[in-house]
């Protein structure tokens, strides 16, 4: 909601096993951003955002 640039999916891994395999989903929840692993498990908001900004803002 906060950004027009973000699309967020909930993906039920057992119904889409090809995706679970593509991203190497071993445990849930797992968050992927732009095809790259962002978080394993549930992170606090600040940590999740820090990971996201690091991923999208190189240097």
């Amino acid at each position, binding site marked *: *909601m*906060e*950004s*027009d*640039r*973000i*699309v*967020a*999916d*909930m*993906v*039920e*891994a*057992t*119904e*889409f096993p090809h*995706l*679970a395999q593509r*991203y190497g*989903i071993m445990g*849930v*929840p*797992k*968050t*992927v*951003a*732009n*095809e790259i692993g*962002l978080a394993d498990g549930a992170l606090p*908001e*600040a940590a999740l*955002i820090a990971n*996201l*900004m690091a991923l*999208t*803002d190189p240097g």
Partner: protein
Amino acid sequence: MAFIQDKDRTVVQTRFEELDQPVKLINFTQDVECMYCRETRQLMEEITELSDKITLEEYDFVADKDAVKRYSIDKIPATVVEGDKDYGIRFFGIPTGYEFGTLIEDIIMVSKGDSGLEPETRLALATLNEPVHLQVFVTPT
């Protein structure tokens, strides 16, 4: 058989009293229904019955190509939670267990038009200079 148990219906209906603006659930399924497509559609129908502010639109993944393209749906069952606009919130697969609660919270959040995020987060997100596709993988609990 209803998906939402009676006691849960009451809880959800009470939560839905917080709804402000109307919310649209846009559900994508297909004729030859995929795994959980029928159940997801039924669940969305039950949720929609719990508030006058929630409406349901249903599209066929194969036949309704315009809608599929508009909402960038690449797999089904899929449900979009839309408020005054499409915020890019999608549920792929059936949202049961813990994810049911997430769906209800998202409906309320979209209706209120407020993400509920911290000010620092909002500031950081405003600096985003590229598209981000988040996928949160879950399993039915």
